C-alpha cells in the first residue's frame, strides 16, 4: 500500500483528470440539499460534505434495469428475457468510511455469501466498474456512530483510494489496484514519514473524539424470540409513520422489488428499492399479510439489521452508523436507543 501527497490546491486538477476516464460523482449542495452529483469542474468540493442519500445507489440504484424483451409473437425469441448489464466506469469522490463499509456489507448478501450459490451479476458488474475515493472524517458528527458498529471514522474497508485531510494537503492512501490506476491519472508525490504519521494522528483523534463505551452489537440480546417479544416494538411503533425514509436513506437497507413494464410490445424487467415499512412488501396474493401492522414492520427492520443479519453473517451488523436515519426520521426513531433496548430483560 503506497501513500501519496496531493496539495489541496490541486484537487480540482486531479478530479478533472479522473473525470476524463470515469463518470465522476462528488458531493455537492444544490438548493441547500447535499447529495452526490455529476462532477462540476467549476465547483470542486472544498470540504467534507455529508450527503442525504448514501452511495448505495452506485451499486444498487433505486431502479436497475435487468432484462429487455419483446412480447410481439412475430419477433424472434418473443417473450425471452435478454440480460441488460450496467455499463460504464464510475468514480465517486468524497466517500465517507461508513458509506464505503456499506458496500462491503451489502456485498455479503449480493455477491459474497458463502452459503448462497446465487450471486447478483448486476451488483458484481457495478462493483467491478466503480472506484470509490474516500475522504476520512476528521471530526465525526453528532448523530453518527460508526465506532459502535465495527467501523472507524477513517476506516478503509470498501475504498479504493482514501484521502485524509492534513490541512493544506491530502494524504492519499492507495488501497487497491483500481485505486492505484486512478491515483496515477495525476501527479502526486510520495508521502514522507511525518505526513504518514500526521494522517495516523488525524484518524486517532477522530476516533477518540467519539463517545466511548457504546457497542451496539453487545447491546443486542442473543435470544431471538426474547427480543422479538419485547414491549419496545409496540411503544416505538406508536409514533412510527411507516414511511420509507429510514430505509431509503440507509446505506445498508438493500431490499428490492422486481417489476415488469411494457410499452406496446417492448418490455423491461427491472428492480427498484423496496421498503419493509410498506404493507405491500409482504402482502400475499390471498390478502393475508404476515406483517400486517406497523409494529411488525418496524420490528422486522431493526431485527434484520441488528439480529437476523448478524446471525447470518458472522456477527456483522447491517448498520454502518452513518446517522442518516436518526437525522431524517420525521419522528426521531433512534436506532441507538432501539438497540440499547434490544437487550432482553
Amino acid at each position, binding site marked *: 500500500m503506497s501513500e501519496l501527497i496531493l496539495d489541496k490546491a490541486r484537487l480540482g486538477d486531479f478530479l478533472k483528470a479522473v473525470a476524463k476516464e470515469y463518470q465522476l460523482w462528488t458531493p455537492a449542495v444544490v438548493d441547500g440539499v447535499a447529495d452526490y452529483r455529476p462532477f462540476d469542474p467549476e465547483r470542486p468540493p472544498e470540504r467534507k460534505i455529508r450527503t442525504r442519500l448514501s452511495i448505495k445507489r452506485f451499486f444498487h440504484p433505486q*431502479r436497475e434495469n435487468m432484462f429487455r424483451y419483446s412480447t410481439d409473437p412475430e419477433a424472434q425469441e418473443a417473450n425471452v428475457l435478454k440480460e441488460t448489464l450496467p455499463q460504464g466506469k464510475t468514480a465517486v469522490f468524497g466517500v465517507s468510511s461508513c458509506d464505503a463499509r456499506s458496500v462491503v456489507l451489502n456485498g455479503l448478501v449480493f455477491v459474497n455469501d458463502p452459503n448462497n450459490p446465487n450471486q447478483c451479476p448486476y451488483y458484481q458488474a457495478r462493483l467491478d466498474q466503480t472506484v470509490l475515493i474516500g475522504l476520512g472524517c476528521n471530526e465525526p458528527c*453528532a*448523530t453518527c456512530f460508526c465506532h459502535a458498529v465495527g467501523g472507524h471514522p477513517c476506516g478503509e474497508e470498501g475504498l479504493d483510494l482514501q484521502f485524509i485531510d492534513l490541512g493544506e494537503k491530502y494524504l492519499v492512501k492507495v488501497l487497491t489496484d483500481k485505486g492505484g490506476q486512478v491515483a496515477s491519472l495525476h501527479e502526486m508525490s510520495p508521502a514522507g514519514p511525518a505526513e504518514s504519521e500526521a494522517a495516523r494522528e488525524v484518524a486517532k483523534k477522530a476516533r477518540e473524539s467519539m463517545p466511548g463505551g457504546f457497542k451496539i452489537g453487545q447491546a443486542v440480546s442473543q435470544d431471538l424470540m426474547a427480543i422479538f417479544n419485547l414491549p419496545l416494538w409496540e411503544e416505538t411503533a406508536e409514533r412510527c*409513520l411507516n*414511511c*420509507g425514509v429510514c430505509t431509503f436513506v440507509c446505506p445498508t437497507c438493500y431490499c428490492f422489488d422486481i417489476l415488469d413494464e411494457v410499452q406496446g410490445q417492448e418490455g423491461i424487467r427491472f428492480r*427498484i428499492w423496496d421498503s419493509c415499512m*410498506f404493507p405491500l412488501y409482504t*402482502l400475499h396474493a390471498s390478502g393475508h399479510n404476515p406483517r400486517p401492522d406497523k409494529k411488525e414492520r418496524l420490528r422486522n427492520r431493526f431485527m434484520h439489521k441488528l439480529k437476523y443479519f448478524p446471525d447470518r453473517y458472522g456477527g456483522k451488523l447491517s448498520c454502518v452508523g452513518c446517522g442518516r436515519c436518526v437525522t431524517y426520521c420525521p419522528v426521531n426513531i433512534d436506532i*441507538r436507543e432501539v438497540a440499547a433496548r434490544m437487550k432482553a430483560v
Partner: protein
Amino acid sequence: MMEALIQKMRQTARDLLAQGQVEAVYGYTQGSAPMACRPFVARTPEETDRLWWDEFCVLNLVNFLPRGTEGRYAVVAKGCDSRNLVVRHQERQLDLKEQVTVLGVPCQGMLEPELIRKATEGREIDIREVRIEGDQVKVSGPGFELSLNKAEVTRETCLTCRHPNPVVESVLLAEKVPEDPDRDKDARVREVEALAPAERQDFFRRLFSTCVRCYACRNACPLCYCNLCFVDESKPQWLGKSIEEADTLTYHFLRAYHCAGRCTDCGACESACPVGIPMRILTRKLEKDIKEAYGYEAGLDIEVQPPLTVFRPDDPENFMHE
C-alpha cells in the same frame, strides 16, 4: 413563556388522566437530536412529565390519533392541527364533541428543521446544538456556527398563517395570539401561475427530481388515512412504482388532489420530507382555487359542508369540453 406552557400542558394532562376524563394524551416529547421532537402518548399521570413543547414540534398529531369514535383522549393542537380535528369530524373519523379534549396552543409560528438543515449546506448531520436567542437561531457543530434570522427559518405556512389559534373549543395552554385573517397565503402560487406552461413543467420537473418515493409526505398527513392508498393498490396497479419522472409527478399530483378542500396547510408533508421538497405548492394551489370558487377554507367550522362534497346548480362550468 415556553416553560409556562409546558407546565400547564403537563398539569392539564395529568389532571385529565388522573380524573379518568381521557384515556390518553397525544403530545410531544423531547428527541435525541437537536430539533427532533417526537410524538408521544401519555397514558398515565406519571407519563405526563415527559410531555414537551418547543418551536420544532411541527408534525401534526391528528395523524397519530386512533380512527373511530371509541375512547376519549386529549390532543395538543395548534390552529392548523385543530382544523384537522374538524376535518376528521366532518369525515366521520372521530367525534370532536364527545371524544376529544383539545389542549390548544396559540401558535406564534414554528421553526422548520428542514430550513435549518438547508442553511447548513450539507452539515445537518453534524449539528450539535440549535439555540434560540431573541430573533436569532444559532446553529453549531464541529467547525461551524451559523446565526440565522428566525424569520428565515420559520415555516412558510406559519409566516402566512391566518388561523394560529385553535378554531375549536379547547383548554388554552397560553394566551391567544393576534390573528390576521387576510394574510396572503398565495404569493408563491401566483408566482408559479404567472409562468408559461413550459416553464411550469420545468419548475415541477426540477421540484420533484430528487423525490425518492418514500411516501413520508403521505404518511405524515392527517388527511391520508385510507385503508389502502392508490399507491399501494396492486390489483390493478394504478401507478408505476419507480422513480421515473412521470410516475413521480403523477404520484404528487394525486396525493395533493386527494387533499383538495381538506388541506389546512399544517405543513407536516414538507417537514417529513427527507430530501427537502417544498411540495405544499400543490395543495396551496388547490386551496387557493377552492377559496376563490367557493369561499371555503378547510376545517374552520364543523357545521359547514366541505365544498367538494356538495354542489350548486350554478357552479362554474368553464372547464367543460362542451
